[in-house]
């Protein structure tokens, strides 16, 4: 590992002032430190942002949830309000990583974690995300767990977060402080599709600091479900965050997002359009799934993800529909 300077920021302004070219913000470190050990990240300076006052979970009078970026994954998942009012979010966080990793990992870091594509994590291999223009061995190589939606010639990586999939379905947004001041980015616009610039995971500019996640209230039954290669402590093959409001047999509202299928949490807007106003039947749910997955472009070894996603959508919506 390359030597680096370490500084502790005392406020967002202080963090911004300490950030410079080649610096990285440090949260829990569960991904960044690992990437430094792998030689994927070689920061000259770490600016520790875990000491900032962004470590609280608050509720506004209208029911909106404000989660500070330095809140640990464990504290978010165990929070009473989150468990009672946003159980899908709690469940999604608990579906990720292990107990001891969640105790270190922060909400901001969870959003900004990098892909677990094996070529990205191996500094001896070409990778357009790590080394733009070097090529993408995953496209014709080991890609059984990579993207089926929204990928590009340059990159077929997936975003690994569970939490972000729930936040996408919840219509959350991300508070960011940068050189130009504070702004709020809808979660759906926060992560990018790879296009020709897979080195950019998000719309953040250098030095931008995530300070909080804002989650509007959700008043309908919701679920998070994750399919993976072992029962626990594994990344998603496909995951789903879904919410369904059914009245008198008709879908009044629906929220759907998929994980493990794309470079970003995949908000399934086409499926939602099919669902709204339609009868709450398996036929409708299947039609919604097909509408969303029509855009899928599976690679040689990950075509299984398309029927897996379809089945997951249909089954999860059917269960939510039954509960209404």
């Amino acid at each position: 590992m390359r030597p680096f300077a370490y500084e502790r920021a005392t406020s967002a302004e202080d963090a911004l002032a300490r950030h410079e070219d080649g610096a990285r913000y440090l949260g829990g470190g569960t991904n960044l430190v690992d990437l430094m050990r792998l030689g994927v990240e070689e920061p000259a300076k770490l600016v520790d942002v875990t000491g900032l006052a962004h470590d609280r979970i608050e509720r506004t009078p209208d029911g909106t949830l404000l989660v500070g970026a330095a809140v640990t994954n464990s504290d978010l998942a165990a929070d009473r309000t989150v468990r009672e009012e946003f159980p899908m979010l709690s469940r999604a966080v608990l579906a990720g990583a292990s107990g001891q990793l969640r105790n270190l990992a922060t909400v901001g870091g969870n959003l900004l974690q990098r892909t677990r594509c094996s070529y990205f994590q191996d500094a001896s291999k070409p990778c357009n995300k790590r080394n733009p223009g070097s090529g993408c061995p995953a496209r014709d190589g080991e890609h059984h767990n990579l993207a089926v939606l929204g990928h590009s010639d340059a990159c077929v990586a997936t975003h690994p977060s569970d939490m972000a999939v729930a936040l996408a379905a919840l219509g959350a947004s991300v508070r960011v402080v940068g050189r130009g001041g504070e702004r709020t980015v809808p979660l759906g616009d926060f992560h990018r599709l790879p296009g020709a610039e897979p080195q950019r995971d998000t719309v953040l500019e250098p030095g931008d600091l995530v300070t909080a996640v804002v989650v509007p209230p959700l008043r309908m039954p919701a679920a998070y479900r994750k399919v993976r290669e072992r029962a626990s402590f594994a990344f998603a093959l496909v995951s789903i965050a879904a919410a369904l409001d059914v009245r008198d047999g008709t879908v009044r509202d629906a929220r759907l997002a998929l994980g493990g299928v794309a470079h970003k949490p995949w908000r399934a807007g086409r499926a939602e359009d099919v669902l709204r106003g339609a009868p709450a039947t398996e036929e409708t749910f299947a039609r919604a799934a097909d509408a969303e997955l029509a855009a899928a472009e599976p690679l040689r070894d990950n075509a299984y993800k398309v029927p897996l996603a379809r089945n997951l959508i249909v089954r999860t919506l059917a269960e939510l529909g039954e509960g209404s």
Partner: protein
Amino acid sequence: MDSEATPVVAAIALVVNGTEHRLSVDTRASLLDVLREYLGLTGSKKGCDHGQCGACTVLLDGRRANSCLALAVAHDGAEIVTVEGLAEDGRLSPLQEAFIEQDAFQCGYCTPGQLCSATGMLNEAEQGWPSAITEDVAADPVLDDAEIRERMSGNLCRCGAYRGIVAALREVGGEGARP
């Protein structure tokens, strides 16, 4: 070469198993490196060094954490308990006794991490934290065998002593545990 550039050193203090240590550490050193190489506490193990195996698990300010991914410099002032600190006044903790009783290890390499992780996990369950398989995340969980397995999934045992580990945890903190 960058990798041969001058190390950056920082002064930190750590309270490890109740004893305060003032140390000058390389900013690259993990808590695990400091425990093993600076303080000679070799109970915590370097299995994968990537947060995947759990052999390095310690209690960091009361919570279980992978010491391999925690930079020591970022935890100045922290209180750490390692496997060497679980016994009190020369008496093994009830969990350690249960590991012996239930044959919860074979080679023993993962055991320090299992013990620290289990200690932290039982605290989490006592505080009512849910897990990914808790039926109703808003309710207080019941620590049955499935819950124990889910909550301990961050600790691998290549000998496959999982049955004994689950039995030990059931005995100490599980559903129907002896009071």
